């Protein structure tokens, strides 16, 4: 019938660069198109070590997932999972404990379709097409509720994601709506780009992304720390990505700030009160 739209949704438009596919390109993936590679190359002119930045971020994700599994987490909600590149959450988690369950969430149809292909046959991992900004939709999706038990601790991941939210979209408010649903003992990990270092180069980077489907809002350290409201940051706190519990401390080098991405992990306190009297006595 002629009255029905036949065009594809925006996310399938391969002529507009997408942050997820640009990221994939930085990591050496092949799930990207000319428009993505073009943006990636221009970004590399502003920040020549932009690939290192992406790599540091991806490797942070790996360490975080292992840390969480070692801390007893067996279910993960990875929002903004993007194109399934290398070292995906379910691979890492299930390599430690095959019973780990993972729900990926992305709003880009291609990334979702891709993830579905990748996860075919894996009963303990699934992907939901949803939007970070719609917590009710994400948390209430039948696939989410089928796999995740919200009475048990969950590892909530928002890695390299929140800088795609504008201030007026209220990132802190959105996180709070997820936090409320998490059982005590749940972990929350994020990494977030900043212009606290190399403000000019990072500014150029922001400009490049302006044309993409995912414009960027960089935030300062204090602002990023505020995103952990209601969580207690675990050691070593909010640090440069490479500094977060590195496997190869000698690789961190003298300039971990080069990655220009903050990373941290928080835990939702077991009690209702954030700081217990016992803690304040010891300090």
């Amino acid at each position, binding site marked *: 019938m002629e009255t029905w739209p036949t065009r594809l949704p925006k996310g399938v438009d391969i002529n507009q660069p997408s942050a997820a596919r640009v990221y994939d390109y930085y990591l050496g993936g092949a799930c990207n198109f000319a428009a993505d590679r073009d943006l990636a190359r221009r970004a590399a002119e502003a920040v020549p070590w932009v690939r290192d930045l992406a790599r540091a971020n991806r490797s942070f994700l790996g360490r975080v997932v292992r840390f969480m599994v070692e801390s007893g987490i067996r279910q993960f909600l990875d929002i903004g999972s993007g194109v399934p590149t290398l070292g995906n959450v379910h691979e890492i988690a299930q390599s430690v404990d095959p019973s780990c369950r993972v729900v990926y969430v992305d709003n880009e*149809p291609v990334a979702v379709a891709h993830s579905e292909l990748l996860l075919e046959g894996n009963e303990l991992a699934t992907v939901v097409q949803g939007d970070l900004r719609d917590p009710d939709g994400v948390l209430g999706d039948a696939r989410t509720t089928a796999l995740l038990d919200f009475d048990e601790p969950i590892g909530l991941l928002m890695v390299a994601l929140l800088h795609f939210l504008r201030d007026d979209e209220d990132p802190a408010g959105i996180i709070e709506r997820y936090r409320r649903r998490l059982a005590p003992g749940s972990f929350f990990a994020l990494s977030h780009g900043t212009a606290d270092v190399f403000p000019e180069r990072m500014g150029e980077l922001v400009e490049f992304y302006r044309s993409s489907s995912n414009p960027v809002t960089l935030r300062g350290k204090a602002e990023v720390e505020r995103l952990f409201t209601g969580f207690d940051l675990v050691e070593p706190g909010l640090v440069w990505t490479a500094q977060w519990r590195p496997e190869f401390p000698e690789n961190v080098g003298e300039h971990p700030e080069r990655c220009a991405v903050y990373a941290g992990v928080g835990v939702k306190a077991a009690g209702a009160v954030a700081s217990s009297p016992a803690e304040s006595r010891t300090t």
Partner: protein
Amino acid sequence: MSEPAHDDPGPSAAWRSGEELTAWRADLVREWARVIAASSSVSRPRGELEDLVGGFVDRLTDAMTSQPLHIQPARDVGADLVAAEVVGERSLRDSIALLGRWLPVLGGGSGADSVSQRVVAVLGELAASYAEAMRDRTVEIQENLKLALVKAKEDTERTLRVSQARFEEVFNSVAVGMVISELDGTMGRSNEAMTEILGYSPQEMVGRSVHELFYIEDLADLTYQYAALPHSGTGRFRRQARLVRKDGETAWTYLSVSLLTDPDGEPTHMVTAVEDVSDLYLLKERFKYQTLYDTLTDLPNRQFFTSRLEAVLERPPVGTRVLLSYVDLEGLAAINTALHRDVGDYVIRTVAGKLRTVFSEFFDEPDLMLARVEGGMFALLGRYRDSAPDLVGLVSSVQGELAEPIYVGGHGVMVTAGIALVDRAANEVTVEELLAAADLTLRRVKRSGKAQWGLYDPQQHIQDLNRARASVTLPGALESGEFDLAGQPLVARGPDGENEVVGVRFAASWDSLEHGSVGHDECLRLAEEVGTDRQLGEWLIRRAGEEAQRWHRTFASAAPFALVCLTQGHAADQDLVAVVRRVLTDTGLSGDALRVSVPAGALRDELGEAADNVAVLAELGISVLLHDFGDTAGNIALLDRYPIRGVLLAESVWRPLCSPQEHSALVRRACTGFVKLVREAGAQAIVDGADAVAHVDRLREFGVDVIAGGFTPLARLDAEIDALTRAGRRQPAEPGGGPTGSA
């Protein structure tokens, strides 16, 4: 430590012992693992990565040391690196650079197959198989990507098919008529229910414009709403509308129109759902007509007008302006009284017809509404977009029509009208603001006389609005004690030649939270506007009486009298005498201790209520004064007619006495003579003006008895009276210095 090898130079010869080989291997594994971790995003735990790398090192060691050369292990390492996702852009380069430094110590090969050849062969194979694996990997990923794209598209289409099937089901089975149209109104599909309502078959609907269905009177409105829909925030609108059936009959319907968008939110089509409410409508119609129309003129009434105004101002298309005009007929009351009420009704009907004719020259029918909002008041609502109507032309057309006498029952009668016009952008004004603007503009117009007209003026509007607010909140303020008394000492020369305060004129002052400090004269004007001047006056009389009572207790017969000046309206009030008497009874004061002053102008009509009041008050022994005295020479006659105790001279009389050089000899003589006449008539001559005290000596020479100074708040009044009296006593030679005091 090292054991020298035969002829072979280089470190290789030194690495033959098992222990040293183990140490070498451990070092290389650690270093290579570090390089891999740094160059790729592989995130294995360190131990795991080192185990993996250890396997690589062992296989490369095999390849290096095999005799004859067995290259397969090196190939495997290349492929396994890719399989282990060591695929950073520097991973291969950095690994080869590292191995190029470390492998030669293994020696390997012999003779022509030198160590360096062996290293190149091994690393070359590794690199080649790495590249091959990378190519396979890329192709595989691209294949997946392609599948993903196709899948995403299919998923989208499947979702569409499902929702389309659901839509079809609803579309065909629902009892509500539905039609899908292009954004320009061209109709596409419609359903069976639509055929039942409008009589067109679905085939007949296709290609027609939805606008063809609109009833003429709804056409403009509906066209606006359809055109505005793609730009509206809600994407839908609902309303009642009349549609034209195929057979030409009118169908009364309830429309619900909503926008269809593509997945990106771009509007593509509109769905119009039509509910036939004709039966219901006809029932309601009679009743509605009576509640919405004025029976005398058949024009819409105020309710209808207001709701129409609301509709026009709700989400108006960009650029729409509205003209609201009030036409308020003057002279109707006289016609009703002098001739007959029927004549007045006839005049109203005739004027309604005339106004309809005039306005329809300035506005198209759909953009125009004329209503009779009350008695002799009509309201016009006109809507326009581009060309503004000629307002001056409109007003003169109305006035021209009204200037023609209306002949009824042998009489030619004529009415005039006050006309207020408000012209505003429709999206910048609310219904309340627009009505208030028209109300206040009309009031301003009426203040300036009959047959006047005026245009809404934003600046003036704010003033008018504040004034209106002040006057309507005044009664409440009076009630809640926001008003205060102020007193104006009246100073005369006593029998011993010294100044003394003989009386105090009381005034009101309003310390309003909203309007600031409002003085006496302004209070009176505001009070007159809403007709509460009587209450204000009574409050003054009562409070003045209480103060006078207090003085009376202190000073006995030497106490100053209290004076209250009334407004024209209050002077003519039927209850005035009763109020004054009650206060006198309550306070035990004599009629001389509490005096009232009436505007001289109020007594112009000998038979008026004010004249009665003055006569009765005088009979009761209450001292009556007149103020604004001397504006017309005829005022003198009042002193003959009524027993007047004193007069507050009009400024036009006393001003020339103060500054004779600024006035002609004739004026001076007239004023001097006037004061003399007052004195001869037995009334006190009082000058009331803050700047008059500087001329006290001169004024006294001319016979003025009492000078009033400035107003003093009640709290300081006793001290002021005391100071004025004593200042006079101390300085009898310079009485003028006293009254300025602390005023």
